């Protein structure tokens, strides 16, 4: 059993260059046993490289990679991928096209005496009983993904890595597969790390989200903490809708055109406001004017130009319906201040 003080994966100060470009720039993160960690970032931030470094398909230039406390990469020595006991689910699944489901799932356990039983077990776990002798091209996208997952789970890996697991599924299928996958992983009790560029996916799936930018983790936290207290304006903007106001902070308060907000900063600040923290009330005497409205049914996004010319957005319920051109009173319930230069 794993000691709970030891992370299932520990990555420290990993640097990886490809030619002149730095893919990983002192990357560090931990994945705790039994948890689901996602590496979230825009394309080119190095998240897939990070996954491949953990799996052993890329050798870092420097740094440390440990799995269950055992060094996988340290001081230039590297454990080859086949010896790491890491299960990988590839972006396009990489199912062996010339082997059936049982052949694919059994590939990593062929030497075990109970191979057949183990294959049956994981095939059952992913809900594909009866499909053992189908070939990959005879399966739907969602089924292929389950085979890839079953294949990765079969050898009892120490951790499971998933590279953009949902990117090949159409939107209709994605929600269901996402829920199923989470349940299967929970059931298997395996630590899992997955890579995604989809914020909603990361927030909905993970225990911890590590946001990556330029080859390093800028913030790692639980989804709610991350959304409510983003470490930088960039993280705030990447994780959801965010508008920014300029302000001046002094004596614990930041002054902006929309009022004062508590802060422990001093001097020029940028104040981040999420649309759902903005309330609007129609008021012909106010200077803020509605410039645009996007009505989605369950909610609506109303854009308002305030006195200093900045636009901010408000997420309102289905009512009230305020038409563009109307004057409104703007109230902000929550905001976060960042130093103006960050």
């Amino acid at each position, binding site marked *: 059993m794993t000691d709970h003080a030891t992370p299932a994966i520990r990555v420290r100060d990993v640097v990886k260059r*490809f030619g002149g470009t730095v893919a990983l720039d002192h990357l560090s993160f931990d994945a705790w046993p039994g948890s689901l960690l996602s590496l979230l970032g825009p394309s080119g931030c190095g998240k897939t490289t990070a996954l491949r470094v953990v*799996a*052993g*398909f890329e050798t870092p230039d420097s740094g440390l990679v440990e799995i269950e406390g055992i060094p996988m990469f340290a001081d230039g020595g590297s454990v*080859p*991928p*086949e*010896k*790491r*006991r*890491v*299960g*990988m689910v*590839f972006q*396009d699944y*990489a199912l*062996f*096209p*010339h082997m059936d489901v049982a052949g694919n799932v059994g*590939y*990593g356990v062929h030497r075990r005496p109970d191979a057949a039983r183990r294959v049956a077990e994981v095939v059952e776990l992913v809900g594909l009983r009866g499909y053992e002798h189908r*070939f*990959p*091209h005879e399966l739907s996208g969602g089924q292929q993904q389950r085979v890839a997952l079953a*294949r*990765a789970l079969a*050898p009892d890996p120490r951790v499971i890595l998933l590279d953009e697991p949902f990117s090949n599924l159409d939107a209709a299928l994605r929600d269901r597969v996402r829920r199923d996958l989470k349940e299967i992983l929970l059931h298997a009790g395996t630590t899992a790390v997955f890579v995604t560029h989809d914020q909603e996916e990361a927030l909905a799936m993970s225990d911890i989200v590590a946001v990556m930018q330029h080859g390093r983790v800028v913030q790692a936290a639980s989804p709610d903490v991350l959304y409510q207290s983003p470490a930088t304006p960039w993280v705030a903007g990447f994780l959801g809708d965010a508008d920014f106001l300029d302000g001046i902070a002094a004596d614990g308060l930041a002054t902006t055109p929309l009022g004062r907000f508590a802060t422990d900063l001093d001097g020029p600040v940028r104040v981040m406001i999420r649309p759902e923290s903005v309330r609007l009330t129609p008021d012909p005497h106010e200077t803020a004017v509605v410039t645009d409205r996007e009505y989605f049914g369950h909610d609506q996004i109303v854009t308002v130009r305030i006195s200093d010319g900045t636009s901010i957005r408000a997420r309102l319920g289905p009512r009230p319906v305020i038409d563009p051109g109307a004057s409104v009173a703007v109230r902000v319930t929550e905001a976060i201040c960042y130093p103006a230069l960050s």
Partner: protein
Amino acid sequence: MAVAPAGGRLAPPSGRMAVGHRKTPRSLAFLGLLAIVPSVVPIALLVVVGVESGATTAGIPIRRLLELAISTGALTLATTIAATAIGTTTAWLTTRTALPARKMWATLSTIPLVIPSYVGALTLLGASGNGGALSRITDAIGLGTLPSFRGFWAAWAALTLWNYPFVHLLVAPVLRRSAVVLEEAARGLGASRGRMFATIVLPQLRPALSAAALLIALYTLSDFGAVSLLGYETFTKAIYAQFRGRIDVSPALFLSAVLVVLALVIIVAERRIRGRAILHSRHTGEPTRPIPLSRRAKVLALGFLTLVTLAALGLPASVLGYWVWRGASQGIPIAGVGAETVRAGLAGFLAAGATIAAALPLAFITIRHRSRWSGWLENIAWSTYSLPHLAVGLAFLVVAIRFVPVTYQTLVILVAAYVAMFLPQGLGAAQTALRHVQPALEEASRGLGVSPIATFRKITFPLMSPGLAAGAAIVFLSVMKELPATLLLRPTGFETLAVRIWSAASESLYARASAAALVLLAVSSVPLYVLVTREPQ
């Protein structure tokens, strides 16, 4: 004009009638049948001979047949193994590893293709023995004269060194777009390098490897130039010896029939080995970082490639150069092969034109008017593809002597044989070219009131012409290098470059042979270079 379609068959409603299932016009069908005539000759004749001779062996002792089968089989097996090993290694090194100057080595691994095996044989002969280019060097450093390179090992070396690029060309693209992610998946599941190779890489490579081995085996089986020059007895050499200076050609024909059967056996065996190709793999073309090589591996790899390149390119270049230089100093100028060059060019030109002309109606029938009988036409056109050229030449010779004596020893019968041998290449090119012309373009032209023939002239042909030109160039090159059929069928005195190289080399006139060989290589590599570097379609 009849309203109901001929034959009483009901035409499908015109709206549902698919392009490609239109009824073939009579004139086109006639042209197609005419075009296929040369291709029917060799097979038909060999079948007739088989039936005529019944169970007899045309006076050839069984013991002799066995000897030939063993000597031919041994050479074929040894060459196939060696060429496949070398070609696969060069393909792997130049596509998958971090080898310095990969691109250059990849190019160098395909260039030996331009050297026909009989020129390779000439190189081996001109390098060794008394007065050989290499012998001069070994003599100078006190090792004495090299023995003349002849027999099994010489034939094996010639056929391996100058055919392995076919393997490289077939295997390299598969390796280049093979799914690296599958290899990673296997290793991530704990597979060792060995198991990964056996279970993932090899199954992907198998169709290409098997096709490459088939090609090498067929080339070796049907090679005449190299084995005859290097004095190694195989079926082809025996057929030529049987035929020469005799009036009764039936023993030679019988041996040819046996050779054709052997070729068919190899083809059938390959079909079974190849098995089901990996279909439905979506994993194609993700670019991959090459496998890093250790210092030791790098030295070994570079050493191997250098050795192969020196043997397959350096040796012919220097040996031929040496003999041409020696010949020039003895008053045998390289310009002395001008007439041979013109004749080879003429033969190539006529054959390329005739082959494309034959391929055009067949392409239209097989693509625009597909039916069961168009499938048969296509099969017949391809049937000569794997026949040894010596057997084809012999069949045409017999046909000329027995049925159309007027054509005996004329360019007509020679060009007909070329068409039979190289129609598959011309047809392939014409079909590809036609597939790139949308039927809608032709229909638009017809709809504007232009007749079918004028439509072909104004629309289809101009659009096809780049593809047809490429096909013609390939046929031209093949004809320039063709030896055995040319040797049998040429008009008296019609010495082409290939014939000159072979006859001069047989008489140990290496200076003359080398001059012709250098000209042949120069003339044939220019169009080849254009073809290879052309943008792929």
